[in-house]
């Protein structure tokens, strides 16, 4: 008999892999991208596909230039690209989208060490950078179903959060018949993808439930239209797909709850008291920065290391 191979235990591994997790996220995002394309036209799809492509190219180039092992096959750059694309208005000039991709992949992700090492969510941070750099373009919204309309007619400056007077019905909000970012308008598609991720065990329902629940509670206390608050802006997109990002959120369940409630509170404060109509992106970025602190103080108690209460010690 020939000599045998040596390896450390365990010798079996679960099927989940980084690549499969990312693939599942892409599958979960598909309904929203499809809905965005249907609602805003082919331009929306072009933005999303180009963002994904730019992100992969930037990551590949960065790895080549810095002589690091190639990591694009883990699909995380594709996920970042698709998420960023979904967070952009359909009419955004392509070069701006490319700048966003550069910011997301090179500055936010690779400069900090690549996958798993970045402290801020690349897509969210890139969206904020674009918003602060190209405010006008980032708030030029395409009206839903712009087919056959002239360019001028197809642009609306109003989203429901910014101008309550153009408030669509709850059903329109749910199905996505309104102005907004490509991937945030169709609540039905987002929920479908979110539920898929929960069923596949990629994310836990804890984060979206706490995030959305906190916003609902704040809206209710503040006397706002609760269903409208939940369905508008990027709340559902952010809660299911951005606030659940592994690298930039706490590692323990208790930490995730704190993170999600913090996101909900900051979102509500910006929406109800801030100068911006929407606060989901900022809230997630702010909480991203607090993650190391949360992870430092919120950690599991190892078995048998809890200090005994005086009663037990007396025994």
């Amino acid at each position: 008999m020939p000599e045998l191979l040596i390896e450390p235990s365990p010798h079996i591994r679960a099927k989940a892999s980084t690549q499969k997790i990312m693939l599942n996220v892409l599958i979960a995002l598909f309904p929203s991208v499809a809905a965005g394309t249907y609602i805003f036209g082919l331009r929306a799809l072009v933005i999303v596909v180009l963002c994904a492509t730019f992100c992969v190219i930037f990551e590949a180039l960065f790895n080549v230039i810095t002589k690091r092992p190639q990591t694009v096959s883990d699909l995380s750059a594709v996920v970042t690209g698709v998420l960023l694309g979904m967070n952009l208005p359909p009419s955004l000039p392509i070069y701006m989208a490319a700048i966003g991709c550069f910011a997301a992949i090179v500055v936010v992700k690779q400069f900090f060490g690549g996958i798993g090492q970045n402290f801020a969510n690349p897509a969210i941070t890139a969206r904020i950078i674009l918003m602060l750099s190209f405010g006008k373009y980032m708030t030029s919204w395409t009206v839903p179903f712009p087919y056959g309309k002239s360019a001028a007619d197809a642009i609306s400056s109003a989203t429901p959060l910014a101008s309550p007077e153009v408030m669509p019905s709850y059903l329109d909000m749910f199905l996505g018949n309104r102005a907004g970012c490509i991937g945030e308008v169709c609540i039905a598609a987002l929920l479908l993808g979110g539920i898929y991720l929960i069923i596949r065990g990629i994310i836990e329902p804890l984060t979206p439930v706490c995030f959305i629940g906190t916003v609902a509670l704040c809206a209710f206390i503040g006397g706002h239209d609760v269903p409208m608050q939940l369905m508008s802006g990027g709340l559902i997109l952010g809660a299911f797909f951005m606030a659940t990002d592994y690298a930039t959120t706490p590692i323990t369940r208790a930490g995730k709850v704190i993170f999600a409630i913090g996101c909900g509170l900051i979102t509500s404060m910006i929406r109800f008291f801030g100068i911006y109509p929407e606060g989901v992106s900022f809230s997630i970025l702010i909480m991203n920065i607090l993650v190391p602190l949360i992870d430092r103080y919120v950690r599991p108690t190892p078995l048998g290391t809890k200090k005994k209460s005086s009663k037990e010690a007396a025994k």
Partner: protein
Amino acid sequence: MRLNSIKLPHFNRAAESRSTELRLPPKVIISMSQHGGVPCKPVVQVGDDVKTGQLIGDSDAVMSAPIYSSVTGKVTGKTEIINIFGKIHEALIIETVPNQVMSEDIAPPVINSREDLIAAVKKSGLVGLGGAGFPTHIKLSYDLKINEVDTLIVNGAECEPYITSDYRTFIEDGDRVIEGMLLIMKHLNIPKAVIGIESDKPEAVMNMTKLAERYDNITVSALPPRYPQGAEKVLVYNITGRTIGKGQFPVSVGCLVLNCSTIAFIGEYARTGIPLIKRRITVDGSIVNKPRNIIVPIGTRASDVVAAADVRVLPDRAYMGGPMMGQTFYDPDTPIMKYTNALLLFAETKENVQTACIRCGRCVSACSMGLVPTDIEHAFDKKDIEWLKQLHVELCMNCGACSYVCPAKRNISEKNQLAKLFLRENKQKK
């Protein structure tokens, strides 16, 4: 509060195969260190004839277990064998003869007191048969003044995939398990006992419930089939709700935990006096056509087991023990030890693409000890002693759950072991 655990596939294809004896191997290799503690010294010379059950290795140390010849034959040489603790020790090579005879020294022990029981168990050469190889008499000789043990826990969780040797013990030797338990309970004055079996083995649960029916103080606890259910601390917590502190043993919280096959051996030994010279192992793995449980002489070479097994191709990887905690070995002539409960054979190459940690937190939700394995990896890579201490890495029992669930396919549990070693070495330096 429930301890973290993971769900594993079971692959228990050998469960329904009644154990058979392996045909006599041409030779056996018997290591002088088949237990935690002090290795034995050979008491026979090269060239000596030995009989089955004859003492061939012994030690004066308390923390040791004598070693007996598992076959009749001639000691033809010495070699060196690596044990589960990573230490290399002397081993005797015994070539068998066709006419197998039992040693005349074998006689059933007389057990009338705690001291008799402990002495008999030490003489039998018994070590933990579940895989840890801890000398059983040490476990039994806990200090009565310090520890008030009120519960004997029979560990039959057998939570690793493939292995069914403990399951077969419950089915085939259930009576011996009860006899061994009664003996221990009587002489160590332990009022009650619980047999812990995972609920996905209903036949074992049923058989033991039936056998325990006559005894009010013995109950069978059907445990959820989660990994690592059979880890001492986890088992004690899940059965009694008691938390074993860091650095403490089950007896510190009033529990004596023994593996079911270990207890069945005590029951058998009390009847026959035949020392630990053979054991039941599961032979399974992807290249094994007919998985089964076989009873092999201690010291049987893996290659002899493979030769007797129905395999499709020759293995390129083999584990002694389960796929979660079992160990690989390079020499196909590596012998079955007292603590080996399975020999698993595989031939496929595995493709595990390792990526950077993506901080998914799966390892944290998998760790039954409540550790943060991903932080331990960082702390170890930085050689940060203070951080490692804060992370309580010493609690890691190398169950492998963190590595199992890791989507980045990192060898986290291996890092934990290196970190533990690093802390120990650092302590010694000071």
